[in-house]
């Protein structure tokens, strides 16, 4: 079986990031969009940004994201871009659906198919 290219995996990043942002946002939006600003629209702060970083590191196998790096990510789209770039550079891997489902279950929410 041929290996999936990293770029193909990168395409799957956005729905997972949107899902985790939806779960963890202090001021949650029913549907998360790329233009949502993490701090101003969704209410993230340093502690909750750390929680988001932990989740994304776990799911995508990312190296440690510092709170300060996370603070530089203004919008949901910026986060998606960061991870897509890491996946494309093979510094992260696409999240497996099973792991995402497990994460959602841990937080007591069902995965939203709208992403």
């Amino acid at each position, binding site marked *: 079986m041929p290996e999936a290219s990293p770029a193909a995996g990168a395409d799957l990043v956005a729905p997972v990031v949107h899902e985790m942002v939806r779960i963890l946002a202090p001021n949650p939006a029913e549907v998360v969009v790329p233009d949502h600003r993490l701090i101003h629209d969704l209410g993230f702060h340093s502690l*909750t940004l750390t929680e988001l970083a932990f989740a994304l590191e776990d799911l995508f196998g990312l190296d440690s994201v510092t709170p300060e790096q996370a603070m530089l990510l203004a919008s949901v789209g910026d986060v998606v871009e960061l991870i897509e770039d890491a996946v494309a550079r093979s510094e992260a891997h696409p999240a497996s659906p099973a792991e995402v489902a497990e994460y959602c279950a841990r937080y*007591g929410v069902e995965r939203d198919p709208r992403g």
Partner: protein
Amino acid sequence: MTAPPGPAAAEVFAAASAHLVAGIAERQRILGSGAYETAAEGAEVRLSSGRTVLDFGSYAVPLFGHRPAPVLDAVRGALDGMPVSTRLLANPHAALLAARLAALLDPGRLSRVSFGLNGADAVETALKLAIARTGRPSVLAVEGGFHGKSMGALAVTHDPLRRGPVQGFLGDARHVPPEPDAVARAAAEAPFAALIVEPVQGEGGGRALPPDLLRRWSADAHAAGALVLADEIQCGLRRCGPVSVAVAEGVRPDAVLLGKALGGGVMPLSAVVGTPELFAPLAADPYFHTATFGGHPASCAAGLAALDLLDGVAERLPAVAAGLARGVADLAAAHPGIVADVRSTGLLGAVEFTGEAVAGLAVLEAGRRGLLAAQSLSRPAVVKLLPPAVTSTAQLERAFAILDASCRSAGRRVARTASVGSG
């Protein structure tokens, strides 16, 4: 370790954030990776996600492990009989526990007992009795000391951050530095009712005060006509070795304050165990200090069963304490860039990080990996490790493997933050 099905985690955290303290709820969600606590046994806690984590936190309460069977049985017995007291009739559990404590701590000297629920209750009671007994509305405490956050207890707690907003309402307390002549100097400046001191400072960073210093301070306080209150709410009951550290070190305190594990890790219970002299105000006026739930029958039943477990702690303590001491020393050697110092006394270990932020990150990383530990309240660069006495060798090894990985990750974040900051 089983628990009935509970509410959805999302519902729990939404309710906690909206109606309890939001900042604490957020930390709890991170430490549980989105899940909440549902059941516990021994040194482990089961989460709503089905995951199990090691508990080296819990404010030092589960010294005997979570849900020790003899304590549960004793509490069930009290619940089946009479779980609350009339307060007008004699409560046998409280009377028998008082007698056991008097026989245990310093027989013939510390013979009077008053019960509360939280440790701060014991602090409030002891301070009130000492001030009433001496007629001096002033107290000495120690820099780095922690005695609770209710108004009287906060007056003697050395924590500018938490004292600041209510400063004007706090009673007269002076905090002395850990110097041999500090108490004598303070006595020369102004009279005081009592010196309150933790022989091993818990929230002050797990620091044991030298026995010579404690004995000198006690002698100087007594020479000045003041009383000595040993706050062993965290370090006593064999957490740090002896049942009472102060009594074992020859300090001759006028009271030993107990709490945390006194209720067997099952029920809330604290106690002041003191001399008849300290308790003289209650001889003069029996209702000088009372509280609705003081001497709660189910709590005192738990306390009686807990005291039966102390010998078991003494047997397990050397092995767990040695593993703890070895573990923190290895952490210091492996992470010199972020670990500034380590120490341990019995089952109270402390890892002092180079700063509060990295200590906070290490705690979050550890929780995510399966170990609960907390920063010291008034010295947050220090992470306290409070393993139950029932912690197995394998659990201790697992805990330190988690801490090692957590330090590595926290260190990486700090290093990357520094490079981002300098770039």
